[in-house]
């Protein structure tokens, strides 16, 4: 299952916030893809941790689930779920990569329900480890498709807490610093003072297009950076995506 170009761009932009040697708690789909891309390009020493207990994973193709054979094969360690969540709670995971159905201007994520909790319009799969990663990782990087309905002033249900809405989240024991960045296929946002702020734009998009459809006036940094262009799809960084077989 090859990711579409927009997902790939979003993952690529999120990968810009991952530094070599960092320990990243990742999930399936775009978050995992971001770490896999970083590992194959500028951050070969990144350690990927999956909630299934797999540490130092090196999947040879994008896995279908966190418990897939390709997550285990070739990993550095197969631990337990408690091993990895305990490490997360201990505060030694540098970065958590998260997505969700909805995000708001303070980086709160909703992956539980759209609408009223008891009679929802859309019932989603729930937190999984997302709430825990959002609270405990030293920082988080969010990934969101550029679909304006996913951006809301205030999410209807806070599954994964972001910034409090009055300045940035204060880290402490058992408490990370919250969202550091939000990547879309068009841009990278930062959370200056705890609010989503346009910081860098992808080649081919204007600043206005980067915030197009988002239902509030999105803060912008005075000087916007340019995101590096997506590497060639047939290059070595993306070779792993062209593999067939079980995932």
């Amino acid at each position, binding site marked *: 299952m090859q990711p579409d170009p927009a997902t790939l761009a979003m993952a690529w932009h999120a990968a810009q916030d991952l530094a070599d040697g960092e320990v990243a708690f990742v999930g*399936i*789909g775009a978050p995992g893809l971001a770490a896999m891309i970083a590992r194959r390009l500028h951050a070969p020493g990144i350690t990927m941790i999956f*909630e*299934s*207990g*797999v540490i130092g994973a*090196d999947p*040879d193709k994008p*896995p*279908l*689930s*966190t*418990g*897939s*054979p390709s*997550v*285990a*094969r*070739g990993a550095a360690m*197969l631990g*337990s*779920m*408690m091993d990895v*969540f305990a490490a*997360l*709670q201990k505060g030694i995971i540098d970065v958590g990569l998260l997505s969700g159905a909805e995000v708001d201007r303070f980086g*709160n994520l909703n992956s*539980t329900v759209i609408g009223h*909790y008891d009679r929802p319009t859309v*019932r*989603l*799969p*729930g*937190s*999984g*480890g*997302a*709430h*825990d990663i*959002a*609270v*405990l990782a030293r920082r988080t990087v969010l990934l969101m498709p550029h679909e304006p309905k996913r951006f809301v002033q205030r999410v209807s*249900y*806070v*599954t*994964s*807490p972001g910034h409090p809405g009055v300045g940035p989240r204060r880290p402490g*024991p*058992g*408490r990370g610093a919250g969202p550091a960045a939000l990547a879309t296929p068009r841009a990278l946002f930062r959370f200056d003072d705890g609010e989503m702020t346009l910081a860098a734009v992808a080649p081919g998009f204007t600043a206005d297009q980067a915030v197009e459809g988002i239902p509030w006036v999105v803060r912008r940094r005075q000087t916007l950076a340019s995101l590096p262009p997506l590497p060639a799809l047939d290059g070595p960084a993306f070779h792993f995506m062209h593999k067939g*077989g*079980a*995932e």
Partner: protein
Amino acid sequence: MSLEQAIRGLVPSGSLVFVGGFGQCVPFAAGREIVRQGVTGLTLCRTGADILFDLLVAAGAAKEIVVGWFGNPGIGISHICRRALAEDRLRLRETSNFGLLLRLEAAAMGLPFLPTHVLAEGDLVPDGGRRSVVCPFTGLELTAVPALVPDVALVHAHRADPLGNVQSSGILGDTLAGARAARRIVVTVEKIVDPAEIRADPGSTILPAHLVSAVAEVPFGAWPSYVDGVYDRDDDYYRAFDRLSRDPAWVDNWVQDTRTGVAEVVAPARKAALVQAAHEPPHAA
């Protein structure tokens, strides 16, 4: 003991059932036997639910799920649970994956609760309500989560001896936390082996006989999930399920086929392909 006997004797209607497996070793054969026997009123629990939950909900075996996540792992939502929730045939008690894991871990440690730093913020209210506990040394306020003690845990694994010493490898996820939390454990394995084979490699044992109430040999018993190094995950099945399970008529047939045993017949060629895939070296070209 046969699987039929194990389920009949150890999984009565109304039980709180921990369903083991994380990606691999999901105890599908045990779940199908529960459906065949017409067990009802179960509460199912684990961190992230696999599509085995869908089968048990669709068949009317389960009336409640206690989870951190439910859906088709890596693929999408649970169409079956979503419908059952909307139609009030299913009750959902949800927390985060770590929150649920700690509830099981508390039970496994013989404690009524465990403290944690999660679940204090946001809208997720821990099961039993949001209660705090203060560290008597630091004064730090933490969230308490109550122990969750399953009546029985279903576990699928690679091998066991007839006494119930169980061995496995690969991804275990929350399986051991849930199994140790439970009052009883029912195990299916790919192969029953001689006790001497177990004792020649005690480092691979994941559950000791004294915790295990029943063990039954059921080859391919985790299909369509997988068993590390034995057969691979049937990803095509999971993908097709996302499409097919949207259709209530297909779901009814699936439940019916499960009751009659048709649903678990895997074509030999498909079996062979899954076995072969599990034996490819890592990072094969």
